[in-house]
């Protein structure tokens, strides 16, 4: 068996990246395995910090889904290591959404950390990913369709008008441009996860197929290792011939099965990964054990796109939102919970009219029956001995949303079921009040936009940090 790549490079010419976290700022980096990774001569430290998995609220409301303290902590861990080792650090899709405000926030945190630790002067490169609605409107009016993905229709003006904010998903291009300018830290707007890692590898002359695969396998950090354990570091090495990935936590291993299993993670199809510029074809990939904790991968293929199209993500506000929670223990009421809900809906309609005409939404989610799967739940005819109903009222104003949620919650208490034994209250209140929640948003854009230049939506900028 060859020497572990942790001890020595496996080729004269290679590039090594340590990835400490698959979603920086979402749950803290485990620093023990990261320190081991930093001792393995990395050429860069890179992490993805965003995802559309967090739902449409953060993009629409332009917020992060985690506290600033967690973001600072992870950036501090990465930045101090990167400056100590003298290697570049790249973070992409910053602050969960990669909006302009999140990029500014992360650049500011890096500058604050540099001051706090009195780091020697270094250069920060950053780029934005937001797309203005004017540009999209012009394209629609020019007859250059903003095409829908996953069965969605092409974007129309009504949907655009209902959209709060749009980001485009960058490929490697803004990262390569900033690396060419000699920056030490890159804070990237919304990007394909794999581009963050592929960019330095492609810029260094490694084959594109291997480079994109390298990004794909590293972007979730220890999710490509077993046994399961998130937020641990992995070390990747790319050569002209292969990609190798090693778990840095001594208890974890990157095996052919764990790496192949991760290659198909959170994608519709295990063989193809799409990004601005083309796609990665993994159907011929070979996975083999290199050493006890390292897997070697060969034969991924890069297929350039004939026409460049950037993926767009957009979120639109539906309204303000309040939430109520009730419990039910009476078996007869549980068996007839739909009748209880219908009663409450009827009471809301008496006050505001039907939802569409009244401009509100009222949702009932029945935990203990089918909350998680809805009508896809095979066990929905067999609810538990106790259930909870979460009520969401959504309306144009907070006052109306509160009232809608309150009617939906309170009126379940008064529901009139013909044979109910308990007549002092049909449900149990967790609180007799309803709670303000984040406003309700929805994904309005899951689309693509034609671009002539892969940089045109992603303006790059430089800033200084340190003393």
């Amino acid at each position: 068996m060859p020497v572990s790549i942790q001890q020595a490079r496996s080729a004269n010419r290679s590039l090594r990246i340590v990835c400490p976290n698959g979603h920086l700022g979402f749950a803290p980096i485990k620093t023990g395995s990261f320190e081991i990774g930093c001792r393995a001569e990395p050429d860069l430290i890179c992490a993805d910090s965003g995802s559309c998995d967090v739902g449409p609220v953060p993009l629409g409301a332009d917020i992060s889904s985690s506290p600033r303290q967690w973001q600072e902590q992870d950036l501090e861990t990465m930045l101090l290591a990167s400056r100590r080792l003298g290697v570049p650090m790249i973070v992409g899709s910053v602050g969960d959404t990669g909006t302009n405000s999140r990029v500014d926030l992360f650049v500011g945190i890096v500058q604050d950390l540099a001051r706090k630790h009195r780091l020697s002067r270094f250069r920060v490169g950053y780029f934005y990913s937001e797309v203005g609605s004017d540009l999209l409107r012009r394209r629609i009016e020019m007859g250059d369709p903003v095409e829908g993905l996953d069965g969605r229709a092409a974007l129309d003006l009504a949907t655009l008008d209902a959209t709060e904010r749009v980001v485009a998903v960058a490929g490697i291009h803004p990262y390569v441009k900033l690396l060419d300018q000699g920056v030490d830290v890159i804070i990237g707007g919304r990007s394909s996860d794999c581009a963050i890692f592929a960019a330095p590898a492609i810029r260094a002359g490694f084959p594109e197929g291997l480079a994109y695969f390298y990004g794909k396998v590293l972007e979730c950090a220890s999710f490509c290792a077993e046994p399961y354990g998130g937020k641990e570091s992995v070390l990747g090495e790319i050569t002209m011939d292969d990609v190798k990935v090693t778990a840095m936590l001594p208890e974890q291993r990157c095996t052919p099965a764990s790496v192949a299993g991760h290659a198909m993670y959170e994608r519709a199809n295990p063989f193809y990964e799409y990004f601005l510029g083309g796609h990665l074809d993994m159907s011929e990939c070979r996975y083999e054990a290199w050493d006890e904790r390292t897997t070697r991968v060969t034969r991924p293929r890069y297929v350039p796109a004939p026409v460049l199209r950037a993926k767009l993500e957009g979120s639109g506000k539906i309204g303000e939102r309040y939430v109520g929670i009730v419990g039910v223990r009476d078996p007869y009421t549980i068996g007839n919970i739909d009748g209880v809900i219908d009663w409450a809906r009827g009471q809301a309609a008496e006050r505001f009219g039907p939802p569409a005409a009244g401009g509100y939404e009222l949702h009932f989610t029945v935990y203990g029956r089918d909350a998680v799967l809805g009508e896809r739940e095979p066990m929905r005819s067999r609810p538990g001995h106790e259930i909870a109903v979460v009520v969401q009222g959504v309306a144009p104003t907070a006052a109306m949303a509160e009232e809608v949620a309150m009617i939906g919650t309170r009126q379940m208490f008064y529901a009139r079921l013909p044979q109910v034994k308990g007549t002092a209250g049909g449900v149990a209140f967790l609180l007799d009040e309803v709670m303000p929640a984040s406003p309700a948003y929805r994904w309005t854009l899951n689309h693509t936009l034609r671009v002539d230049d892969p940089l045109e939506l992603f303006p790059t900028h430089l800033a200084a940090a340190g003393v």
Partner: protein
Amino acid sequence: MARLGDIAKTIRSKNAGVDKITFDVLFAARADYERVRDSGVLSRDAVGRIFAIDPALITDHVAFDPALAIKFTMMRRLPSGSPGDADVFGSQQYGPLIDIDVPDQP
């Protein structure tokens, strides 16, 4: 007969973008993978029956040998995080797969 939950190493679901949920069933042993794959209990039609959906909503269905995995992807009921969707990450949709009965090999 055995339960899928007793045979598979990993059974998971997760968003694949905002409009789809993808399911991965991974095995530790090739024999178990082939047994489940060949039994048809996770075929496109079988998955449609389990979730009471039109099989046309299953956009991808692949047996992926290198990972000893069966993978399929379906359209969501609602885009992730819309009001009324109670699984923003799509991470608990795999529940009904655990108790599937897998027939013994012929």
